């Protein structure tokens, strides 16, 4: 397939998605860096970070849509992979603090000094190197997903049972990461980051840089998923979703296909987490919370599953609503989220994207 056909394969919705990405990559830096802070159109710094956060959520949503929309695997624990990627990035950022921490210890992060630890635990080795941390951003979620998927898919665990186990997985990780003895900062998590690759995280330019990195990652992640779903592999994945045993009787090893897809999806979620952490400035065990995973599934359902760009749109809509609600009416956000999910399930089985397509009288 030519690169051109890959860009066009998402149909009109996909083309709009790519256009929006290109637009964001130009408009946000120009409005933020190019205009004086008091100019009318100036984009405040916090908006750059907020948009970057939404886009990293959108990447997580695409990762979920890939397995749920195309293969019918409903993971209710996908933020576990997101958080692991985030922790890998957080560990790198912690090591960059160096002597600028409260205790001024060049080797140990503050929380370890506070716990009277003498030396860096072995699993923190190497995280002072950016390349190693980036490798772990992929490997930590990837290996966990591979091991988990190997056991689950080989035993032919599927449907609601798999969803429940993924909930248990992320819950267990949350409890583990809450423990100080784990060596990941306990309930405070990792925070107080100073700089990334030598650039200060407080600087406006670094923030724009991180935003652009997120745009690029989301675009490439989208295109990778688009390639996968457009290949014969992707058609087999959908065949598994629609008639699993038929696929087996044709001679496909269903568990390998699910495993490959699930692992890839987990790594995408890890990348999303790694981009999220430097922009929000903290990662703590709350990110493993099962409710976060369910929320992420709601984004996909709201946007419209099985389209990829719908998932990204859903992540944007729901999170913007969340930002607005939690400022205006903090108490009722969870009710609003629940009502949204029910409304979408009952009235919009194909999500907002499906609604737009119906309005236009064609397929988006």
């Amino acid at each position, binding site marked *: 397939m030519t690169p051109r056909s890959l860009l066009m394969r998402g149909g009109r919705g996909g083309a709009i998605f790519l256009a929006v990405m290109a637009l964001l990559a130009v408009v946000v830096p120009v409005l933020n860096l190019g205009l004086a802070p008091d100019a009318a159109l100036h984009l405040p710094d916090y908006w750059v970070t907020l948009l970057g956060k939404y886009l990293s959520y959108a990447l997580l949503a695409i990762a979920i849509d890939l397995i749920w929309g195309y293969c019918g695997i409903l993971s209710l624990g996908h933020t576990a992979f997101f958080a692991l990627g985030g922790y890998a990035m957080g560990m790198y950022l912690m090591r960059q603090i160096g002597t600028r921490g409260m205790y001024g210890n060049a080797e140990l992060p503050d929380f370890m000094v506070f716990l009277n630890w003498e030396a860096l635990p072995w699993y923190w080795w190497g995280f002072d190197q950016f390349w190693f941390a980036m490798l772990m951003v992929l490997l930590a979620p990837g290996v966990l997903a591979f091991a988990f998927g190997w056991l689950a898919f080989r035993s032919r665990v599927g449907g609601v049972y798999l969803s429940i186990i993924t909930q248990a997985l992320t819950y267990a990780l949350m409890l583990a990461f809450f423990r100080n003895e784990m060596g990941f900062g306990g309930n405070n998590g990792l925070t107080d980051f100073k700089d990334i690759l030598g650039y200060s995280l407080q600087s406006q330019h670094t923030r724009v840089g991180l935003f652009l990195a997120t745009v690029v990652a989301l675009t490439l992640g989208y295109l990778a998923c688009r390639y*996968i779903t457009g290949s014969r*592999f992707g058609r087999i994945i959908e065949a598994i979703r629609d008639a699993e045993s038929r696929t*087996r*009787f044709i001679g496909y090893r269903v568990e390998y*296909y699910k495993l490959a897809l699930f692992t890839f999806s987990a790594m995408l979620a890890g990348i999303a987490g790694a981009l999220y952490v430097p922009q929000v400035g903290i990662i703590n065990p709350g990110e493993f919370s099962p409710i976060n995973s369910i929320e992420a599934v709601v984004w996909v359902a709201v946007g419209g599953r099985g389209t990829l760009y719908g998932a990204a749109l859903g992540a944007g809509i729901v999170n913007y609503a969340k930002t607005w609600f939690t400022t205006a009416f903090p108490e009722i956000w969870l009710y609003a989220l629940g009502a949204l999910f029910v409304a979408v399930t009952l009235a919009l089985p194909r999500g907002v994207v499906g609604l737009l397509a119906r309005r236009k009288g064609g397929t988006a």
Partner: protein
Amino acid sequence: MNLRETVHEMTRRDKVFDFVNRPTERPSRVDISHNTILYLEDITVSFDGFRALDALTLYIDAGELRCIIGPNGAGKTTMMDVITGKTRPEAGQAWFGQTFNLLRMDEPEIAQAGIGRKFQKPTVFTEHTVFENLELSLAGPRGVWHTLFARLDGAQRDRIAEVMEIIGLQDHALQRAGSLSHGQKQWLEIGMLLMQEPQLLLVDEPVAGMTPQETERTAELLTSLAGKRSVVVVEHDMAFVRSISRTVTVLHEGRVLAEGSIDAVQNDSEVRRVYLGE
């Protein structure tokens, strides 16, 4: 056994896990040198005490077209489940040709070895087009990496076109399989079987819900396949069975009740008693 022996026993490379022990080179084609493609011997399957198959013994010759009939609950579908790896029998032997031990293989392995199956209820990929359904069934490598980068070459496209012609769906190539009529779905599933180029086809009630013309064409198709391939058909429609089959096997309560030409079977007093209710 003392500790040393135990450790030795546990660390024997050929005994640790059966995947280590797997023969590295599986025969790629079924060996039919003894002119028998399928051996089922003393196969027994029970569900909650009910004996679905009771020491069933059945042989299918290479190139044969065999019909299996029997009342509901006789074990016809269970037999197909055993052959295709879906159900494991408690006892018995099942061999595909001389070399494939079916009881040690799972569904994808059996399918790749050359046994294709058509289900009673037509099972096609409803969200895919007719063309894509056939593409996915195409004989060839089934690995994850392969399919991620696979492209159809000219010969494969021709093959798909040819099969679409055979099953009469050449004008529906880009139609979603879910929107086909019942008979067309049956045909598409038969087409998917053909794409796999199996040596043994198991066909469960192929003409259920078909019009007389469709039934006739199905009979022609199955007859034309026999010879090069072996075909086992489970069917209730006696007229259809009479039109295609030379040898008929009657199953009853999980066992072979009678076997022979259709006339011999229909005149068998035992068969008349249990099957025709006389």
